[in-house]
């Protein structure tokens, strides 16, 4: 059994994510010698608020309304290091620092959703300008390791775009990665000839240039909307 338990942090499960600014530390009204400093800070703070507000107004003139669902969390995307590409290299998301990575869980014997999503993603990359296209990556993780090794998944996605990459690994590692990305899958009962289908969450996850999961797209997002969202992530 692999130990996945996060370390206990001195009995405190961490800050309540919804506590908001009330938990923020404030300057105290310390010795009088500090008062001028506090005032100066206040002026700076007011100026900063003004600049932020001005920026907000400017950017709100043309906000990009994402088609995908935007996440605000800024922690690193779940690791895929237990999985490897066809050449045996472990998947290291740090390789994509400053770039966008689309993560998809699927399988190569998938007739409809996977090829549609991969074709749409490839078309989206085609719609981006060269600079953005260069900084857009895709990793498809197999949810069917019995039939798909990483090389096969790599060949599969490479058909849609030579830059796309495929990954696979032991079933336990795939289970953990899928769960961490909110993906559920299950193998269907095989047919007489032994072939079977796999039900799976078909969402496309977008890791932003900062390395965190920023946008979730449903599989029917379409190339134009996907390209616009990717460009916004990269801007």
């Amino acid at each position, binding site marked *: 059994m692999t130990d996945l338990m996060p370390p206990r942090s001195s009995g405190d499960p961490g800050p309540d994510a919804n506590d908001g600014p009330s938990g923020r530390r404030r300057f105290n009204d310390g010795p009088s010698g500090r008062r001028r400093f506090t005032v100066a800070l206040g002026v700076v703070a007011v100026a900063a608020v003004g600049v932020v507000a001005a920026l907000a107004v400017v950017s709100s003139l043309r906000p990009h309304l994402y088609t995908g669902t935007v996440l605000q969390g800024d922690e690193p995307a779940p690791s895929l290091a237990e999985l490897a590409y066809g050449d045996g290299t472990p998947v290291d998301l740090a390789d994509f620092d400053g770039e966008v990575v689309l993560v998809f869980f699927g399988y*190569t*014997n*998938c*007739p*409809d*959703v996977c*090829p*549609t999503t991969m*074709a749409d993603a490839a*078309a989206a990359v085609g719609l981006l300008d060269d600079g953005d296209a260069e900084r857009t990556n895709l990793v498809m993780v197999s949810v069917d390791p019995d039939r798909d090794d990483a090389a*096969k998944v790599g*060949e*599969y996605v*490479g*058909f*849609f775009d030579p830059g796309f990459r495929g990954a696979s690994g032991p079933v336990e590692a795939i*289970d953990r990665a899928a769960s961490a990305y909110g993906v559920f*899958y*299950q*193998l*269907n*009962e*095989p047919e007489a*000839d032994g*072939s079977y*289908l796999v*039900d*799976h*969450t*078909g*969402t*496309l996850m977008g890791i932003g240039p900062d390395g965190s999961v920023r946008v*979730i*797209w*449903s*599989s*029917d997002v379409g190339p134009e909307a996907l390209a616009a969202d990717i460009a916004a992530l990269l801007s």
Partner: protein
Amino acid sequence: MTRRDPAAIAGFAVALGLAGGLTLAGCGEATGAAPAGLPTSATGVRVAGAWIRPTPPITNVAAFYLRVENGGSDADRVVAASSPRCAEIEIHQTTTVDGVASMSLASDEQLSVEPGHDLVFEPNGLHVMCLGLDEPVVEGEAVPLTVQLEIAGSLTVDAVAENR
């Protein structure tokens, strides 16, 4: 994860439907005259806009997409399909709720087409699934597909292989 029996899968699909209003590729209004030359049944039903996505060399499954146009005066229903390129063909419905993909055999109801309406097979919805594809589908080629209807009988078209 575990293998599920078909009943459980059906339950899964039903649960998905209940959970979020499932998207069905349904019967749209008829889209008017299609190009001449498409085979039309004596009852006024025809198959239009058939296409297939080019496939990666390592897979042996594919999906045909098409539109069954019922220009006649009686309701009809797609009952089967076949292609010399596929060992077997099943008609499937991808149930998509907020991007969740689950496939199941299409029901009789989903495959019915009323007079004056179209039955649309499209990505992430109804599709004609080709199993045991003999060799990769290459962009630009024409793949024969025969669609069998309950009343109209068999209609054979060429599905164009294209990326879209």
